[in-house]
Structure formats: structure tokens, C-alpha cells
């Protein structure tokens, strides 16, 4: 029984959760084949999958390593740009870099490679930024990373870098989610994958993060979160491990950024503002700081509400002849932010607290026994 110490708890919950996730993927695939591709459902699923990855990557920092960073948007920007720059088809570059004679980069790489580039680029910048910044304490760190995100944004917008970044102008024409669909010669779609693939990408990434969290390094991160001094006294090198967590988190933020680019089909530096970081932070909080499952749930919830379920609040609604008051452009966001405030104030632990998917089944099974 030795080796079962600490995971004496039966393995069934884990297996169950795997089953559930797998089932979900299958459902998504089937739905995509049969429901009209114009349905809002798929928008939500695509964007949700993207945000889920970014939220989890942020949670790895804020929730599991206790580093309160607000640089996420900056790293997403790097990822998005790297992806776009390396994947725009050659014959389109002239059109995209219209003011810069087709730009400096005159080759393009396959999508998976570009995704990895995106991650690496973000991770690399994170490493450089981390060197000075990670020595700072909680909210100083937060504001410094926020500052760096803004600086990155400005650099990418600088006209002198136009040949690479297309200045402040939009990057587009790069492969997006719809290009994952398999088409026949006539150009009709035979197999829809435009939602399934994003799920796979972000699924794999999140799985990697989860593995990391459950590895020895993950434990070291948690140790740092719980008590830096004790962690150091147990031989954990703070600088090295923080640097590691920061770079890894940024790597996945970068991949997330690339996915966001694919979702939006265009990239522009000016949209990666601190507001975006706040949005992601709120997602993490709503889901529960320190719960991967929570982050994933709340990403989909957040996107679904803002893109879909609460949309009707923005338009005039008639019940018979009675016009529902207050409903007009912007009301959705008001309701939305009120909900968020309620969560932040009264449900501070978020949807999941620090629980994960298996824990849900675990409780159930326990009850079952009783």
C-alpha cells in the first residue's frame, strides 16, 4: 500500500472526469457537424476555448505561484503578432503590408510551428522582463507588469518597425479557425473542425499546465505561494522557480494570443489593452483563484454571457405592446459588471474555490457510500 499513500483516494474520480471531458469533446465535434455553422454557439465555444487557455495560464501565476502579474495582455499580443507575422501567405503580404512594400518577413511557416513560435516568443520576452521585475513584491509587481504590457504595445505600434509589425495597422489574411475545416474540391466543407481544433489546442495546453501543477515543480510553486521564506528554507530557489512559472505562463498566454488572433481573423496592437488583462483576471476570480477547472468553466460562462445570453439586454424588447424599460445599448455590460461585483464581494472563492473536476465526483462518491 506504500505507493498509494497520499493518493489513497480511489482513482475513479479522475477516470470519471476524463470520461466527462472526452464526452464533451465528442459532443462538440458532433454538434459542429450537424448544427448550422452560423450559430452563436460556436462563436462562444471558440472564444471560450481561447479564453480558457489564457485564464488558466494566468491562474498558474496568480493562483498557483502567488505571483500577481497583470502582464497577460502584453504576452498575448506578442503571441498573436508572432503567429500572424509568420503565417500570412506570401501572396497576401503585399496587401497586408500595404504601406511597407510587403514587409520584411518573406516566408511563412505551417500553423502548428507558428503556434509554438508564438509561445516561445512570449516566453522569451517574459524571461527578459522577469529578470528585473520578479524581485518586486505583490502589487508593485502587478503594476510593473502592467506597465510592461503597455510598453510592449507601444513598441509594436511604432512605425519604424512597420516592415515587421506593419506599424500600428491591422495584420490579417493569416489562417484562422475556419481554415481547419476540410473542404472538397468544390470548396464545400465536408468535415467541420473550426471549433474542434481550437478545443484540441487549448485542451492540450491546459493538460500540460495541469501536469506541471501536479509535478514536483508544481508543488514547489505552491510552496512559494504559501510561504516564500519557508520555501526558500526548504531549498527552493525563488528566483529560478518564479522565473520558470512566469515564462511558462507567458508561453501559454502567447499561444492563447495566437488563438485569439485566429478567432478574430485580424490582429491589432491597440486592442490588447490593460482592460483585456482585467477581463481575464475577473474570469480567473469568478472561476476561483487556484482552480484550473474553475477558470475553464468561468471562461465559457463569461464569454457566453457577454456574447450571447445577455445580448438581448442591449436591444429594445417588447412584451406584447409593453416596452421593457432600461433596455438599450450598453445595459448588458451594466448588468454584467453588477454580477461580477456581486461575485467579487460575496462569493470571493469563486465558482470552484480551489476544487478541481475530480473533487466534484469525489464528494458525490462519498455521499454515495453514506
Amino acid at each position, binding site marked *: 500500500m*506504500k*505507493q498509494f*499513500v*497520499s493518493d*489513497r*483516494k480511489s482513482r475513479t474520480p479522475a477516470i470519471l472526469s476524463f470520461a466527462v471531458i472526452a464526452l464533451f469533446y465528442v459532443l462538440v465535434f458532433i454538434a459542429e457537424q450537424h448544427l448550422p455553422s452560423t450559430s452563436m454557439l460556436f462563436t462562444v465555444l471558440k472564444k471560450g476555448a481561447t479564453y480558457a487557455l489564457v485564464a488558466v495560464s494566468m491562474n498558474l501565476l496568480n493562483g498557483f505561484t502567488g505571483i500577481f502579474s497583470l502582464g497577460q495582455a502584453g504576452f498575448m499580443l506578442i503571441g498573436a503578432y508572432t503567429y500572424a507575422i509568420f503565417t500570412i501567405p506570401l501572396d497576401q503580404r503585399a496587401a497586408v503590408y500595404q504601406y511597407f512594400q510587403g514587409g520584411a518577413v518573406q516566408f511563412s511557416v505551417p500553423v502548428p510551428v507558428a503556434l509554438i513560435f508564438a509561445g516561445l516568443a512570449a516566453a522569451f520576452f517574459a524571461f527578459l522582463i522577469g529578470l528585473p521585475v520578479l524581485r518586486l513584491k505583490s502589487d508593485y509587481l502587478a503594476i510593473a507588469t502592467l506597465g510592461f504590457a503597455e510598453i510592449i504595445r507601444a513598441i509594436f505600434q511604432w512605425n519604424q518597425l512597420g516592415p515587421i509589425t506593419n506599424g500600428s495597422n491591422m495584420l490579417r489574411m493569416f489562417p484562422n479557425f475556419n481554415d481547419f475545416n476540410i473542404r472538397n474540391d468544390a470548396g464545400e466543407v465536408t468535415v467541420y473542425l473550426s471549433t474542434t481544433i481550437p478545443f484540441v489546442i487549448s485542451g492540450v495546453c491546459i493538460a*500540460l499546465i495541469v*501536469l*506541471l501543477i*501536479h*509535478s*514536483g*515543480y508544481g*508543488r*514547489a510553486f*505552491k*510552496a512559494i*505561494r*504559501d*510561504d516564500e*521564506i*519557508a*520555501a*526558500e*528554507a*526548504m*531549498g*527552493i*530557489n*525563488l528566483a529560478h522557480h518564479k522565473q*520558470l512559472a512566469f515564462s511558462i505562463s507567458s508561453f501559454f498566454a502567447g499561444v492563447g494570443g495566437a488563438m485569439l488572433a485566429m478567432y478574430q481573423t485580424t490582429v491589432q496592437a491597440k486592442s490588447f489593452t490593460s482592460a483585456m488583462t482585467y477581463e481575464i483576471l475577473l474570469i480567473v476570480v469568478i472561476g476561483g483563484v*487556484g482552480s484550473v477547472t474553475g477558470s475553464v468553466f468561468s471562461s465559457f460562462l463569461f464569454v457566453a454571457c457577454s456574447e450571447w445570453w445577455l445580448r438581448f439586454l442591449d436591444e429594445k424588447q417588447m412584451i406584447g405592446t409593453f416596452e421593457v424599460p432600461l433596455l438599450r445599448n450598453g445595459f448588458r455590460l451594466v448588468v454584467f459588471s453588477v454580477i461580477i461585483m456581486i461575485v467579487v464581494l460575496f462569493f470571493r472563492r469563486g465558482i470552484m474555490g*480551489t476544487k478541481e473536476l475530480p473533487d466534484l465526483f469525489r464528494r458525490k462518491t462519498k455521499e454515495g457510500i453514506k
Partner: protein
Amino acid sequence: MENNILRIEHLTMQFGGVVAVNDLSMEINRGEIVALIGPNGAGKTTAFNCVTGVYEPTNGQILFCGRQIARSSPTGKMRKMYAGNDASAFVGDSVRLSPDHVTKLGIARTFQNIRLFSGMTVFDNVLTAKHLRRKSNFLVSTLHLNYAEEKRMREETWELLKAVHLLDVADEMATSLPYGKQRLLEIARALATKPTLLLLDEPAAGMNPQETEELSAFIRQIKDEFQLSIFIIEHHMNLVMDISDRIYVIDFGRLIASGVPAEIQNNPAVIEAYLGGEDQ
């Protein structure tokens, strides 16, 4: 190689105008249990923090197994405000190892105000402390390719918990344990780093006499079981007199006496310091 495992030479730690530790010199031999005692605020924990690399000493040097782990002399502003003894001895290149480095060399510690990893189970607290001895890099362990290593570490952890009689609570949250057990867990966690020198900062604080009894037995037991040298700070005189081979006494940062328990027990200076200490 020489037989003292830790040697502190002319250690002085000064915060601003306050001299917390003043010209402290002492040594610990292999296999010894050495106690550092003194009234509250005498600078005992500060000395610990210097040894473990939390503080950079103002002056003096510390050798572990003959290797410098700290060496410095007053610099900058300190040079003017320095109030300790001779600062001349250690001028020149200073050495400062970070706490984690010191731990890697084989010095482990517990904390006076318990510092367990609150978000983790008892088992994970100990398992985490094994992290520094791992061979596999983060890619390997992320992909869980180091199964053998992980398994070994879990088994060792299991052994440790058995040794400190915490096996039954292995899956409890660390902070949910009673005070006494938390202290034991801290010791187990320290042992998990495979130290040769163990620093215990008031391990018996908040324990009842009976628990204290067990503790002294326990300390001896782990000393033999893990071939440790032990450096202990403690107020419980019975415990100190019972287990320690030699005792150092400091008051207001200065060393006022040292020797075997019997000598210390009837050393007037010590008694004075303590009575004085109590009175204030």
C-alpha cells in the same frame, strides 16, 4: 577533514543602531546536540537567520564543514555606525549564500513561528521539501517521465511521516493539525531535505510537559537515525539540559557562557542574566 561541522567566527549582526548579535563565536561538532539559550530578544533567532542565509551578517564568518557559507565586514553606511567588535578581520571579498543554497549544502531548519505550507496536505508538505534533491529537470517531471524518482520520493516521505507518527493524518491539511503535531511536521519537512545539520528554533514552544518529554526522546532518535548534528534554540530548560551535549548562552547578543549542561546550570553569569531577563 576537521570534526566540527559548523563554526561561527566573530558573528555580528547589526540592524541600524541595534546590535542583535555581537561578536558571537561558537562551533558544533559532528554528532553533537548543541543548544543556544538566552533570555527573549537575546539574538538567538537572529543567529539562526545568519547561519541559514536569511540575513547577511554585518561582520564575521560562518563555515559549514570547513566551507565558507557567509563572510562579510561592515560596508557602506554600516562602516560608520558599526558598533560591534573588531571589523578588521574579515575585510575583503564577502561571501553570502542564499537560504536555498545553504539548505542544499545540508543545513535544514524549523521556524519559531511555524511556517508550514498552508495550502497543502501533511504529505505534500514533506514531499515538497524533497524537491531540491530531485535529478529530473522540469520538462521531464512535467511530463511525469520521472516515475521511478517520484515513486521513490513518495516512499521516503511515507517513511518520514511514519518516523514522526503523522502517517494517520497524511492527507489532512497541514494547518488543521494541533500545535504539537505541526512542530513535528516542521521537523519532518526539514529532515526531508536530507540535512547533516538540523537547526531547531524552539521546537517545544507551546507543548505540554508530556509532549516535551516525547520530543526530547524523539530528537535523540532522529539524531541517530539520520546521523545528524543538531543546533537547537530552546527555553524549556529541562529539555535543553536533558538532550544537549554543550550549551552556549547569549544575552544582549553577547556570548556570556558556554560548556556542558552541568557547568551552565550553576554559572552565576547565566543565572543573573536569566533572573535579570525575567525581571525586565
